[in-house]
């Protein structure tokens, strides 16, 4: 990474962590994860202890119904909720990245530095993706600590978090594009929500489109792709799908940046 680019990333991170919003977002994700995970783990434990009470045969194999397991009772519901939480929180972080610069007019100042437009976009993207990674890492601490302590299901949890990270990157990419095309942070956030909602799950299209067409566009949905990770299955195709958001968002942001320059 060039010195100029590194300086830009540092500046972006400093701005990000200088604002209470970033910390509040991290607190929100970590708190929601902890409470959701604890609550589901608590209920799961209660069910297990109920089944394992002496009148029901203890922990002998076969006495506990197969559906009472970490995957079905804890991982899936918590991670589904977390995925929706990300849609709510990630645009709050991305909305300011370009829109704030435009609103304040500092984007023109930035354009006069020796940084190329590509470097500017890369720097902002890198800082935002880094923040998403940090967000995921913070929310990972408690579930991972619990699971490691119980000695169970860590690979599945890793798969789920890989999916959440990939989803976070995709949502951040959408948010960055919306921010790049907008001068208003509010509009950037709302349009990021709207686009994320459109892409999150295409099942709503079955109400309007023929079944075959709806089935054809279904694989484009974020929810479907994230679902495989939530189920514990990591597929290269799903990783490539989420990674694909990065070059598309980068190209669209460059378009927005240059459109502004030539206007």
């Amino acid at each position, binding site marked *: 990474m060039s010195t100029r680019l590194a300086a830009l990333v540092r500046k972006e991170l400093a701005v990000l962590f200088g604002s209470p919003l970033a910390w509040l977002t991290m607190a929100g994700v970590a708190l929601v994860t902890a409470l959701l995970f*604890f609550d589901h783990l608590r209920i799961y434990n209660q069910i297990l202890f109920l089944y394992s009470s002496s009148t029901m045969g203890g922990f002998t194999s076969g006495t506990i119904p197969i559906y009472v*397991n970490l995957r079905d009772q804890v991982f899936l519901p918590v991670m589904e909720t977390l995925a929706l939480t990300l849609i709510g929180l990630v645009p709050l972080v991305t909305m300011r990245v370009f829109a704030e610069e435009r609103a304040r007019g500092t984007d023109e100042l930035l354009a006069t530095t020796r940084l190329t437009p590509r470097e500017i976009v890369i720097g902002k993207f890198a800082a935002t993706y880094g923040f998403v990674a940090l967000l995921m890492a913070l929310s990972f*601490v408690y579930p991972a600590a619990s699971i490691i302590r119980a000695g*169970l299901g860590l690979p599945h949890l890793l798969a789920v978090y890989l999916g959440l990270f990939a989803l976070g990157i995709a949502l951040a990419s959408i948010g960055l594009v919306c921010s790049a095309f907008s001068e208003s942070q509010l509009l950037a956030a709302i349009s990021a929500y709207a686009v994320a909602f459109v892409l999150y799950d295409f099942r709503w299209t079955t109400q309007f489109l023929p079944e075959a067409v709806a089935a054809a566009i279904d694989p484009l949905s974020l929810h479907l792709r994230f679902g495989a990770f939530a189920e*514990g299955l990591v597929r290269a195709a799903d990783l490539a799908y989420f990674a694909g958001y990065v070059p598309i968002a980068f190209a669209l942001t460059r378009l927005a940046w240059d459109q502004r320059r030539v206007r």
Partner: protein
Amino acid sequence: MRELAAIGIVALAFGLGAFYVDRDVPLFALANLAVAAAALGAAGALALRRARAGGASPAARRLLARRIAAVAAALALAWACERGAARGGWTWDATADQRFTLAPATIEALRALPPGLTATLYTEPGDNRARNVRLLLETLAAAGPLEVRTRDLSEASKEAERYGIGSSSTIVLELGERWELVERPTEGALYEALRLLGTPSASVLYVARGEGEGRFDDMEDAGYSGLAAALQVEGYQLRDLVLPAADAIPPDASAVLLVGPRRPLRDVSLAALERYLAAGGRLVALLEPGVETGVEALLARWGFALPDALVVDPASGPVAGDPPGVNPIVFQFSDHPATRGLGPTRMVFLRGARPVIPERKPEPDDTLRAIAYSSRRAWLAPEPGGLPPGAAPERPADAVEDYFPLAAVGSYPREAGEARIVVIGDADFAANHSLRALYNADFILNAIHWAAAREPEITLRPKTITVDQFPMTPQQSLRMLYGVGLLVPELCLIAAALAWVRRRSG
């Protein structure tokens, strides 16, 4: 134009938000989506008109054209990468029960079918299992020629009636005019359906009866109905052979199964078996310790020694409520088709076993070998019938510790054909209570396949692995929540407060 776009975006967010809350498209969502479509369409048209009328310089137009081309290239790149990755098919199954890792048998069963196989998954909205089943089908489709379809059950009443579909997440596998219904889709259930769709084999197995042998129609724990069902799935026809009334083994027998006889066989039965083997017949004998049936003497003529003793293997802990050592867990196998794939991580669990020692070859060209062994710490307890129930056998001072063969096979080329014999020193391991434990089903099914000269069908079948079910105590959970779960957000909130104060003051 911007106002219209803003209205459209807000309406779109609310319309789809309502869908995600309701999982349906109520009137509110419908109205919002209609407004969004109209507003965004109008905004787009206005933007297009403005762009056409605008007086951007040729250089600016070229720049923007390059950027638009870059967007198209990025889309193409993303699409190509996704397709390439999908074609490569790399996956990592992180589930505790390895539910997306297909057994070799499933893949072989799928690939053995002629082209044109379709799997239709019938689901209802809100069925949480559907995604898991769909992923399992996609995994299967990636392994062989299978077309996967999904249908809404509420819109497929005709199919539901035709196939008898009673619940969501049901799969119908179709191949031409034939079809199989899979109501609780697991890999095991799909495997059985795939096998049933395949061409049925003409192999006939005769199951000996009449001297207290295990019953293949008994569905209790001690019965062998599970083995019967598994053999039928593998393409065998099962027929009873009432030994006391049989003076000859039917000529269409692919093999004879002798499963745990409890009484001595009559001389006429033994003679029939002897003649059958001499004529190139195939026998699979599962013989319990503590029972003398006369088969031991017959097998001795074919080279097997079966001392009446119990193999006690201290390397095996207490299993199934029995004392330690009496139910050996077998993890040492010799290289033979019947034990293909079995080993230290794919073990077999016997429930009280006698040694089966390949002693001497009747003819120089015969082949005789042990295929499964106890651990080196095992010893023989004589008179297994005299052991007190529930008590751990005590090792006599003069008992010799050694690897004891627990199963052996022999093949005997004769003029009339090649005779094959499989002898296993236990029958209970294939009963309903133990058949699905570890790799017991694979061991017995593969041994039968080998005896019946159906080696290509020897494989490892799908397993149901126990999922994570052991909990943390409530105290541990609470300690983790206070120790880690709440600490992280608390520190973040403190940092947020400091950032806010710093901004206000500076």
